[in-house]
């Protein structure tokens, strides 16, 4: 080996190794900081929950009314139960608008039967532009006029939500997935920041947790249990770390970029002014939040976007690799597209902490992370391979595996540590998983996550970023889900259910 080759090899092994170690230390430390921030928020939240005044908010005539928007595409199996659950939420005044986005199954028919719907010649204003034409608006003849079902031509989830925004009567719009199960007080809790600070709060997001394995009765999660499949178990702890801890931390510093479409509340007037949800972007929910940040910062407005850690919306997470892969590619593609679309904000002090902190963080640690993750796997394989071959006497030169061990500690060890920290926070604050066995399973899932799952999701995420950069047609389509374990309905509910994604054949 020449000296030059020697030097190059050295830099490749040592330089690359150290580069990745530093990267993983940075990303994990940033998560650790978010964990501390979330911890402070949880402590504050839990200690104050007794005198938040939710009962007064519920009984007050001054509580802002809410329009709940439920986009639905081929949801005939679960939509009736979902709407019934929404109509039973504890909130003084709200309407539920179901937007049937050109379903090809019996979504509209089952709703018509369940709620005695009749067609009403409602005027749908065009405050937000939409693609799919409204075919009919139906209202229930039962009880109050708070269930509205609009049938429209298929145009995708964003288009469905935009139609719902146009129809909404109330100043706050709450976007929920048709298969989300909300805690009874969820709407009261996400509305509270608006009531407390009406001049500044423009949007709030609720935490999303995995519903798999949980027992559901009458549209309510009554028993929080760990799912059986490991793929779902890992997602439980992943959601805990990424959604509950990550978003709470970002919200604490006023730089929340993502509010999940599964449960988010927005001021209608500002969403209308911003042009509604983008129908050419996969991550339409996060894109709306980033656009609101951008627009309000450019207008010089003093505003707040808040994440509410409790209570929650429960959603079913994928239990098959294929479905999970599609989901993760879509999410990563969405984030990449949003960052590309709003690249002017990245590092720009005009947008405050969102510009100088949150968006660069997302570029460095969300978009780049899967690439570095996979590079780390290759690196480890090469180093350990060379060391193995040398030990077997097949090659003449050796490498020190110390760096590889350090990389493992920085990347995986630190990550397990963070997930355990998230679990600890959960234990000290909400403690939703009451069975002791579920806690041990969660601890184990925090370790198992790093073996296979992490690498697989990194691969899918790389693929999602590449799709975004190459602007390939989006990967939509329906994805089957198993449905919740329903205490009452039993076998009927255990049947296959179709996912919320409202992109149908036209997309």
């Amino acid at each position, binding site marked *: 080996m020449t000296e030059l080759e*020697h030097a190059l090899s050295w830099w490749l092994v040592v330089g690359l190794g150290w580069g990745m170690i530093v990267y993983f230390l940075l990303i994990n430390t940033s998560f650790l900081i978010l964990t501390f921030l979330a911890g402070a928020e949880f402590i504050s939240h839990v200690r104050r929950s007794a005198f938040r005044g939710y009962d007064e908010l519920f009984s007050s005539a*001054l509580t802002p009314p809410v329009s709940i928007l439920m986009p639905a595409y081929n949801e005939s199996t679960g939509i009736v139960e979902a709407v019934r659950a929404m109509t039973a939420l504890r909130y003084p005044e709200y309407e539920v608008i179901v937007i049937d986005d050109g379903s090809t199954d019996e979504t509209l028919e089952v709703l018509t039967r369940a709620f005695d719907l009749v067609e009403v010649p409602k005027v749908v204003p065009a405050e937000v532009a939409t693609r799919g034409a409204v075919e009919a608006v139906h209202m229930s003849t039962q009880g109050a006029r708070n269930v509205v079902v609009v049938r429209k031509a298929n145009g995708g989830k964003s288009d469905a939500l935009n139609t719902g925004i146009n129809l909404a009567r109330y100043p706050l719009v709450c976007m929920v997935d048709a298969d989300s199960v909300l805690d009874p007080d969820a709407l009261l809790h996400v509305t509270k920041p608006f009531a407390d600070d009406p001049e500044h709060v423009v949007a709030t997001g609720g935490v999303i947790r995995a519903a798999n394995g949980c027992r559901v009765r009458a549209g309510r999660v009554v028993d929080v249990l760990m799912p059986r499949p490991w793929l779902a178990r890992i997602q439980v702890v992943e959601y805990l770390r990424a959604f509950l801890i990550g978003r709470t931390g970002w919200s604490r510093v006023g730089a929340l970029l993502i509010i999940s479409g599964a449960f988010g509340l927005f001021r209608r007037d500002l969403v209308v002014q911003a042009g509604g949800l983008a129908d050419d972007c996969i991550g339409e929910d996060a894109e709306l939040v980033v656009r609101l940040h951008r627009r309000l910062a450019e207008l010089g407005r003093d505003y707040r976007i808040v994440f509410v850690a409790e209570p929650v919306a429960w959603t079913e997470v994928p239990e098959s690799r294929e479905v999970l892969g599609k989901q993760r590619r879509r999410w990563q593609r969405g984030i990449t597209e949003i960052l590309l679309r709003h690249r002017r904000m990245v590092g720009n002090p005009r947008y405050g902490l969102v510009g100088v902190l949150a968006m660069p963080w997302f570029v460095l640690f969300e978009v780049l992370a899967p690439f570095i993750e996979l590079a780390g796997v290759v690196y480890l394989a090469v180093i350990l391979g060379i060391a193995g071959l040398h030990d077997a006497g097949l090659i003449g030169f050796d490498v020190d595996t110390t760096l590889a061990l350090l990389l493992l500690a920085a990347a995986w060890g630190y990550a397990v*540590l963070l997930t355990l920290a998230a679990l600890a926070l959960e234990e000290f604050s909400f403690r939703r998983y009451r069975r002791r066995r579920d*806690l041990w399973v969660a601890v184990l899932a925090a370790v198992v996550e790093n073996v296979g799952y992490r690498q697989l999701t990194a691969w899918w995420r790389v693929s999602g970023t590449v799709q975004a950069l190459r602007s390939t047609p989006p990967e939509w389509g329906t994805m089957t889900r198993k449905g919740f374990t329903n205490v009452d309905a039993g076998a009927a509910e255990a049947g296959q259910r179709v996912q919320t994604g409202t992109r149908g054949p036209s997309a």
Partner: protein
Amino acid sequence: MSIAATAARDLHTDLDATAIPGLTRAAGVGLLTVLLLLTLLFIVVAMRRLTAEYFERRRAVLIAQTRPSILQVLAGDGPDPESWARLSEVSAKVWRASEPGVVALLGKVRGGPREALVDLLNQRGTLARARRDLRSHSAIRRCRAVEMLGAAGDGGSVPVLLPLLADRQPEVRQVATRALGKIGDQAAAGPLLEAVAGPHPVPPREVSAAIVVLERAADAPVMLTASESSDSRVRSVAAEVLGLRGAMVAAEVLVHLLLHDESVEVRIRAARALGRLGVPMALKPLHASLTAPSPELRAVAARSLGQVGGRESVIALVGCMDDQAHRVCVNAAESLTALGDPGRQALRVIANGRSSRAAAYAVEALALDALGRRQLERVGI
């Protein structure tokens, strides 16, 4: 030869990374640290779970000792001497576990049982402790104390609660606002109104809700005086409360606010309040507001006209069925149905008439009216 190559040659004779001094030790320390922290965190999680379960069980056992007596107190019109004695004599440990449950019950019961619970809290020193805690450095303790005094309806604590409307912590201000509303002392109405516009303001919604709860506060002169405040937030709250409390004596004041106030927000609230009051003298000013520049004010005025009633509003409402703002048209059409047959007749004419835009709203309103009647028939009204 490159610098990198030279450096590499100087440092290595092989690809042995241990040539970097201390690397092996660093790796060892790093791995050990991670392992130690992992173990520590695992122990923390496990201990937390075990201790939480232990304390939950222990609390349940302690609460079980007082539950029968508390239920007997709640069941009777007055305190049952035997139960009362048992509750008065339970140990401090048992009382500490039971106290939150007793405080929570205050908001759920009325009359004799409630008074008995308040007496019990007094006797156990809970309310005295709460009054002391109002001066605590901890915002949480102050909040808890205020909440407890409010739930107990402790009128004697009003003077010490009032300064907390300007507390440095927003949650203390809000809890104090609600507590003063629950206590129901009208003397608090003025300071509550001032709290909306203070240097540390309380959300107007909280203040309005609290004042609405205060008995007869809306008839008190303080509300009418507040409607002349130089601060628009105070005037807004005054207008809102006057409408919610159905203060008929305030109609003239509200009309004045609707017609002449410089703040659109105040005018909107005045229009809404006049709709709630339903007084005929509100008709003309509401008609005038249908042409206001603010679409929100026009929409609220249109809705309020439906609440006030009177066939003289038909023409005015028909006139704004072509309004550029969707909400104004919807409210005007709905209000026309609320005016009864004259309004419905006007809608039928519009539905068959000139403007397709107005016709669409008229058709919608008639259909919703029919739907509403069908819903009423279903429930037998």
